[in-house]
């Protein structure tokens, strides 16, 4: 065969095997324009004088010399840090318990974590105001039992904030730890036992050690998410519990001081990136996505091993003691008992909104003095609430489609390519998860103000899509990772062309993942407040925005009715997702 003939064949062959990597381009452009650009722009603003636009460090200088900002910074870190610690402590046994289940049972029980995970932060926080208030559920209960005579102050202080934060973030911790724990080979623990380790030693030195990447990833994600949080401190905190995000909102909404807001955002982003960097040094960022990270530096490893051995010895003693006191059976029930306590903490308080929604009273007292449907009437007959609900549905639906398309095609491109850029691109699509939402929201607000997209559905959809893409991307990447590409090849050898292969083999097999991605994106948007605070308003308000406005104005039972509606929608969507995720 001559060289000429080979060359003549080459172009035709190349068209048979097109590279898939270009499928990732639209997603990258989208994130560059609506995520990287606005965040960068905001950071640039922080170095500019608000009036003249000249370069200046005035905003940072202002932060440094006003001790109130330093204090807020300290409060934000301390609340976020404690939230991370407590969420991981509460979440770990739950994740451990779920990981140990046979897969069949795990699905339904996982819903007990997924429902609180996806329940609106507004609803959860609103429920706590009913639980913790002076005339709230807990105080009423304790007083009627005669345990206390004066109501305890459980709200508008640090205690209230911590309860609300931990309650909000524990599901995220569980969801992050779970994949790592499921990936741990249980026979390793058994092997350790046959090699002479006590159950406690086997757990701490083998299982716990292997679960550390998941644990720390959970801590990191909770910490970063908490940094940008404002709902809980605004509703459950006192004046001394103000967090950074609240300051940023005030700066932007009331004072229009972009430079200063940018500087505050920069500090928050720096904190987030710094904790990512420290984490990466110690564990490797890849463990966030469920892969096991590299082994850490050897000195650290030795220290860790000593600590684990010490923990093991202590808990072995403790276990012996427990067995002596409550017997072997009792000890075995400790884990489920603890897990159900945590699950109860995650689920029950939110349920308090249900009776309150049906109250006949004007107030949020519990138990309700009588029952009626008047607050649902108020909701359904209010033009404002209904149009907000309709808008939320509309925006969420379009966001779901857009985010799933972007996330799905990008994940497909990565799954089919062996480019050395894969790792970097993967991280890029997860980045909106690591940058606190408030920063994205303020950045987009500035960008959209210039583009005329403020108070438009398009603006909301774009913003929500930025937030939803990491979820759809990860969901699709997961199903594509386990997808057997030989099935496509098999279809081709059996005579199916590209289109038949796609419609009869690939899509039916990926259906579960696609539906799950759609629904997760839907919920992300339906429940989104941070971007809505800035981008929606007036007549284009969304449901969460309308709830938020009502909540800071005056808590009222209509909010309970709305909370019930929102929770019913989200639970229905989740159950649908669960159904579709299982193969037929």
């Amino acid at each position, binding site marked *: *065969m001559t060289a000429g003939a080979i060359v003549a064949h080459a172009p*035709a*062959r190349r068209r048979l*095997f097109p590279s898939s990597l270009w499928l990732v381009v639209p997603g990258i452009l989208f994130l560059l324009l609506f995520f990287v650009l606005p965040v960068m722009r905001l950071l640039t603003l922080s170095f500019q004088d608000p009036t003249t636009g000249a370069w200046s460090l005035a905003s940072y200088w202002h932060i440094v010399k006003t001790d109130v900002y330093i204090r807020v910074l300290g409060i934000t870190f301390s609340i976020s840090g404690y939230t991370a610690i407590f969420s991981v402590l509460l979440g770990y046994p739950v994740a451990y318990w779920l990981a140990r289940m046979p897969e069949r049972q795990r699905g339904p029980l996982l819903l007990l974590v997924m429902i609180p995970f996806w329940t609106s932060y507004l609803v959860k926080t609103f429920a706590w105001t009913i639980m913790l208030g002076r005339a709230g559920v807990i105080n009423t209960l304790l007083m009627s039992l005669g345990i206390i005579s004066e109501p305890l102050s459980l709200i508008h202080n640090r205690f209230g904030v911590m309860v609300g934060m931990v309650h909000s973030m524990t599901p995220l911790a569980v969801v992050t730890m779970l994949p790592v724990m499921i990936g741990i080979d249980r026979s390793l623990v058994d092997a350790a036992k046959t090699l002479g380790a006590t159950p406690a030693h086997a757990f701490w030195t083998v299982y716990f050690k292997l679960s550390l990447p998941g644990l720390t990833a959970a801590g990191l994600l909770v910490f970063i998410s908490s940094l940008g949080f404002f709902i809980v401190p605004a509703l459950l905190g006192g004046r001394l519990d103000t967090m950074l995000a609240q300051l940023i909102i005030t700066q932007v909404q009331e004072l229009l001081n972009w430079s200063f807001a940018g500087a505050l955002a920069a500090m928050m982003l720096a904190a987030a990136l710094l904790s990512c960097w420290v984490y990466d040094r110690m564990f490797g960022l890849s463990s966030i996505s469920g892969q096991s990270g590299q082994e850490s530096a050897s000195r650290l490893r030795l220290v860790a091993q000593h600590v684990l051995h010490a923990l093991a010895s202590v808990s072995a003693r403790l276990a012996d003691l427990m067995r002596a006191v409550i017997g072997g059976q009792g000890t075995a029930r400790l884990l489920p008992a603890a897990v159900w306590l945590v699950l109860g903490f995650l689920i029950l308080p939110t349920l308090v909104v249900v009776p309150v929604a049906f109250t006949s009273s004007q107030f949020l007292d519990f138990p309700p003095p009588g029952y009626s449907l008047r607050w649902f009437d108020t909701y359904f007959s209010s033009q404002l609430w209904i149009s907000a609900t309709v808008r939320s549905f509309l925006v969420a639906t379009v966001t779901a489609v857009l985010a799933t398309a972007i996330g799905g095609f990008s994940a497909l491109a990565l799954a089919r390519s062996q480019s050395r850029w894969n790792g970097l691109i993967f991280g890029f699509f997860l980045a909106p998860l690591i940058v606190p939402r408030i920063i994205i929201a303020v950045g987009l607000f500035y960008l959209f103000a210039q583009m005329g997209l403020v108070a438009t559905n398009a603006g909301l959809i774009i913003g929500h899509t930025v937030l939803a893409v990491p979820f759809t991307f990860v969901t699709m990447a997961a199903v594509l990772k386990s997808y057997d590409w030989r099935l496509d090849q*098999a*279809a081709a050898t059996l005579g*199916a*062309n590209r289109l038949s292969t796609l419609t009869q083999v690939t899509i039916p097999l990926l259906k579960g993942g696609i539906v799950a991605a759609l629904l997760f994106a839907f919920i992300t948007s339906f429940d989104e407040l941070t971007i809505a605070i800035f981008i929606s308003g007036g007549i284009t308000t969304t449901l969460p925005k309308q709830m938020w406005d009502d909540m800071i104005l005056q808590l009222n039972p209509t909010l309970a009715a709305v909370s019930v509606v929102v929770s019913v929608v989200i639970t229905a969507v989740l159950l649908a997702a669960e159904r579709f995720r299982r193969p*037929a």
Partner: protein
Amino acid sequence: MAHQTERQATTAPPKLRLEGLSKRYGAVTALEPSNLQVNAGEFLTLLGPSGSGKTTLLQLISGLTEISAGQILIDGRDQSNTLVHQRDIGLVFQHYALFPHLTVAENIEFPLKMRGVTRDEIKQRLARALEMVHLEELAARFPRELSGGQQQRVALARCFVYKPSIILMDEPLGALDKKLRDQMQIEIKRLHRESGATIIYVTHDQDEALAMSDRICLMNKARIEQVDTPHEIYNRPKSAFAADFIGISNIFRGTAIDGPHGVRITTPSGDFIPPAGTAPGMASCALVIRPEHIRIGAGTANTARGGVYEIVYAGSETRVLVALPGEQRVIIRLPPGNAVPQIKETITFSWEPDAAVVVP
């Protein structure tokens, strides 16, 4: 390096002809330019160690992988650029690649539907295919509800049902246990006979290759080493690799030198008489003797001595492992009933010159 088949008597073009076919992945050569002819109805096995290019060759023939250079001719027509689904080729995957969302029946119907076969005909052919692989009862099940052997049968039925004229099988029995494998080998041979298809079959397992094939295509390091009938390839290996890879061989490396009494192979373990007709003057060659051709006791021509270091009992035979001076090891196969030497005993053994083969 063209190893053409010796039986080229027919005038019709061969079913499949590869001309200078090769594949490179960047700097890695997965297949050196290779020529191969497969006749219609033939059962050809690709045999070779891991990474020798067997899967690559199959994928090139099926069109799933882009060829780097060369040509694929089917029935004399160039098919190098035909799309996968338009080639008249069937492929059975190692792990079956059954569609998990389709039932057994739907899996088998898939290629027929893709070809627009009428519904009546689909029904008939499905029934026949199910009968052929004895799966009538399981038609409504999903693949995950079947055992490994049953899944394998579905994969076979799905391939044979649309009667491709060439069927490629990549280690189809690799995931099955020994007993099931033996059983499936017989079924595949039967399907081959009944369908008259041309089959190219990949395996690691030399016994499987020897038992099933009309011819074996032996591959090594991305090259075709030798293409021959099982009998030829076992008895007349053309390289030390072929001798070593198929069956057990005793290989003495040395030099062929013309001496006063004729050609001798000079090795570190002694000088040996090669089979008649061996040309002298090979600076480096190897003398290959199969273990069953060696006899314990002195002989007339080639005799050597060594210490027994291991005895392996293998049911129908006993293998005696002997160490000779200079790192040379020799395996002797004793049929049952022969006296077995003791470990550490020094024994004398011998073989007839014509029982050996000299390879470069």
